[in-house]
Structure formats: C-alpha cells, structure tokens
C-alpha cells in the first residue's frame, strides 16, 4: 500500500473509540452475563401535565455506575392542549431518543468502516391520530401511526456507502428496535 493511500485510510476520525467497542464485543461474547444492563429513570409530577424526570444510575458489566452528572428532563404538553408547555411532549422525547440512537450508530459504523463524517443532521416526524388518546375512536391506536427520519449526511463516501451506514445503524439500534417491536411493560404501584 502506498503511503498516500495509507494516510487517507487512517484519516477517518469521528470521535468514536471503535477499538474499545470491538474489544467490548469480544469480551462480552466470552462473558455474556456481563452484558446484562439495566437502564433507569426516575420521575416526579410537578403540576398539571408537567413532570420532571431524572437519569443518573445504571447497571452494567456486573456493577453499578453513575453518569458523570445527573440529567434532568421536563415533559409537558403544549398550550393548545391547555397545558403550560414547560417541556417537550413525551412522544417528542421518543423522537429525540431515536435520533440520538441512530446518529450514534451512524458515527460508530462510519468509524469502523473508515468513513470520515463531516456533518450528520436528521429531521424526524411522527404521525399521530389523537382520536386514540382522547378515546374518540377505539380503532385508532394511541401511539404513532408511522415515523419518518430524514438524514442529511456529508461524508467522504459514495451514496451507496452512506445508505449502507444508515441501514446498518438501524439494524443495530436499540431505540429503533424498541419502537418497531413489541416490548412487555409492567407498571406497578407502591402505596
């Protein structure tokens, strides 16, 4: 390989530590019990439709961890629902989660494939017929009737390579899986 080609091939830096990710994959294949994670959030009702939620601790690799700082999220409903709009709606946070997950995946896959990303922006839109949540029509589901994600990606790669990044990211995305596939949810009440 010529030096020029070698230099070009080493150039991709998307700020993702792929060696660490691949190392983790190898280590966890040998010790699948360490791959068991627990993700958590806590929340407290404020007033009206306004809730404050926090994310701090999680469990993984066999032990407890904390994020480097606590993260707080306000959720509320907009004024047209006669609410005070003190935060994003919970369903918008679903889109935020999907965007964050898919984009992180694109960066990681690009790094692994030695593709330099210059910019990655996404616009997400989900349709919803609110006759469902308002109980007007029981045939209408509460949730999204579909989600559209539109990526604008500037990268040192062909259109086919960029399409493959986006496809592979969906294949490995936790939030994409959570939204596209059913999950058992258990809600309990402690007095």
């Amino acid at each position: 390989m010529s030096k020029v080609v070698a230099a070009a091939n080493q150039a991709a830096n998307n700020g993702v530590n792929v060696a660490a990710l691949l190392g983790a994959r190898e280590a966890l294949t040998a010790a699948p019990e360490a791959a068991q994670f627990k993700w958590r959030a806590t929340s407290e009702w404020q007033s009206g439709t306004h809730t404050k939620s926090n994310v701090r601790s999680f469990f993984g690799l066999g032990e407890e961890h904390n994020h480097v700082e606590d993260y707080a999220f306000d959720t509320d409903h907009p004024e047209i629902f006669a609410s005070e709009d003190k935060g994003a709606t919970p369903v918008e946070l679903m889109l935020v989660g999907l965007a964050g997950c898919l984009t992180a995946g694109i960066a990681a896959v690009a790094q692994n494939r030695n593709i330099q990303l210059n910019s990655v922006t996404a616009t997400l839109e989900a349709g919803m017929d609110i006759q469902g949540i308002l109980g007007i029509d029981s045939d209408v589901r509460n949730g999204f009737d579909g989600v559209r994600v539109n990526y604008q990606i500037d990268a040192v790669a062909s259109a086919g390579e960029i399409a493959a990044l986006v496809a592979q990211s969906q294949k490995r995305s936790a939030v994409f899986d959570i939204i596209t596939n059913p999950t058992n949810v258990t809600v309990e009440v402690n007095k």
Partner: protein
Amino acid sequence: MTVTRQNTIRAAGVTDVVVIGAGHAGLAASYCLTERSIDHVVLERGEVANSWRNERWDSLKLLTPNWQSRLPGFGYSGADPDGFMSMPEVVDFIQAYADFSGAPVQSNTTVTSLRQNGDGYRVISSSGEWQAKSVVIASGACNVAVTPKVAEAIPAGIRTLTPHQYRGPQQLDAGGVLVVGASATGLQLADEIRRAGHEVTIAVGEHVRMPRSYRGRDIQFWLDQVGILDERYDEVDDVVRARRLPSPQLVGSSDRMLDLNSMSDNGIRLTGRLMGFNNGLAQFSGSLRNVCALADLKMNRMLDAIDQWIASARAGSDFPAPERFAETRLEASPKLTLKLDDGSIKTIVWATGFRPDYSWLHVPVLDRKGQIRHDGGVVAANGMYVVGLPVLRRRKSSFIHGVEDDVRDLSAHLHATLKAA
C-alpha cells in the same frame, strides 16, 4: 472374510475413523480417506442421502446448476448442465457417487452416543459399538427445523408446519397461510402455496436477495468466477454472522427470479419479522423497510463486484451490459398485525432455519448455542472433525460442490494426526 469392502456390512469393532453420515459430505470424506488408505466406516442412520430422500418438500430443486454438482473424483455427466436436479435426481447422484467410490457405508445404523475413550472415541450405534482413533461428523446442518420462541404462544386452532413436515400445498387446509421467514425455503413455499389458491402473508426478517442470473450467466457462475465462494472462513469479515445467514432467495429454475417483488406480483402480502402473538393478533416488526434496504444494498455490492471482475478481466464485450434490479417494493404502511382468531389464517409455515442435532454427542465441544466449536472443521477435541456445515472452511462449504476442498484439507489434517499418534 470379504475382500471387497463395497457395501459390505462389517461387524462393529475397531477402525481408524468412523464417519457419521452418508450424505454428500460424509461420502466425500470417505473418498478422501480411501485415497489415503485410511481404514474407516461410514455409519448411516437410514440410507445413502437420507435427508435428501426424506426431509425435503416435493417441488424442491437444487439451488445450484447441474454443471456445479461435483464431488471428489466425480461429477455431473448428464445432458442438461444448466438444469437443476429434483430431489430424486439428487438422491440418484449421491447414490451413484456411493457406488462409484465403494464407500464402506453401513446403512440403517443410527449413532446413539459418541464419547471420548482413551486416546480415541467410542461410538455406540443401533448395530453395535465402534472404537475409533478419529471421528468425522457429517450428520448434516439441517436435522432439526428451528422454530422461534414466539411459536409457543400460537393461538389454538392454527396448524403449524415445518419445512420437514411440508411436502406440498395439497397438505394444507383451505384458508390463509402465514409463512414465517424469507429464505429460499420461505419464498419457494409461499410462492407455491399462493399458486395453489391460498391467501398468503410472508413475514420478512433479514434475508439475502440474489438474482438467478446476471449478465447472461447463472449467478453461481459469477460467484465461482469472482472467487466469492472461495473466500475462506478465516478471511470472512464476521464468520459467526456468515454461518447464520439465511439461504439466498433462489429457486432451481433458470428462468425465474425469486424475490420479494415476485412475491408481491404473485399477490403475496409482505410484513415485517414475526415478533409475537398477543390477544389473537400476530405482531410484526416495523423494520421491514430497513431489512429490505439492507438486502438491496448487499445485492448491489455483489453485482458491483461482478462488474468489477468483468472489467478487470477486460471481458465486458463477452457479456450483456450491467443491470440493476428494481428496489424491493413495499406498501406505504406494511401491516404490523394480523388477526389470527377470526379464522382467516389456518396455517403457519415456519421457514425459520434449521440446526444440527447433536443430542448423541457426549464430548464437551458444543458452545452455549449448541453448535460445535471448531476451527475450519477441526473440532476442539483431538481427532474429531466436522464437515458439511455453512462456511465451514469457505463460503461454498454447504454446497455440494463446496465440500471437496474442505474434505481434502481435513483428511490431510486427520492423516497427519493419525501418523503423529
């Protein structure tokens, strides 16, 4: 004592190598052992080519063309090199190979236990015990039809069939059919069930799209030429994934492209991967668009590789121009659920893959998923080998023609191990 070993039943006893299974892979291994004058016996639970005789549906034809049907020392010699063998023809081909090679096959001998014993192995079968220095496992990759965990929750009143139970659409009750899986098996069964007049839905997870022919030649010709099938297991990017890939969407017919678009053209409805059953509904994944995009992208990369090979061989004028196939077409909003409790679906057909049966194997060589741990067929127990599994040593390993290079490599390894003992 009999001089010739051909088709002679030997009393159980002592030999250098026990080969388990007289399908194409076991017979090819036997041929190479005979070439090296290594004493061995081939134990077969039924007859030669047993799975091909008894565990295939009626309309199935080989996915590889006749010219590619070859085994060590033997090849197709018929008048239709571009045709595809029916199952009776495959059985005849493999039986002819057994006759030609004089393989020491002991039929109707089911291995019930294999254990380490001293420096070798103790093989207990339905017709006696064998002690061998070495064992070649050639018992097949498709002994058990795999059904997903969600199958446990199927509502009552729905009949289910695995590809091992399915022979043809005449077996089905009138009414709708859900085919789960978009491999060659899933698409072939969905297609013929639809042609028999049933409403058919096919649940599509990850799949491998591949045209039957490209630029005037069968796709197998190109995979062969470009060297894709010769890629070694230790060079493949992710061999674990490669070994689990569903079979490519092919049918043994030179004029038919079997893909999801041909399913749609035939009036078959496409849904995402089957995720579960809930309140009388089958639930499907919303990932259908992405699994189709992945398959289209991968097919196009394969076609790019073929075009590049032709260009670098300066052979462009010998073949028709490059073409690209239409993207997989989907409804704007593919269905996420299907009602199962209103009588519209009568049958579910599982085309969700197969696995080997190693219930008789009492040597600690299985991984946590129940697969044999091996390095290109060399099992992690001295003197034990496995052949005939997907991407065992090369991408072509599970094809009939793909077994030859593997058994040549492994018989050399086995020979050296015997000599060193």
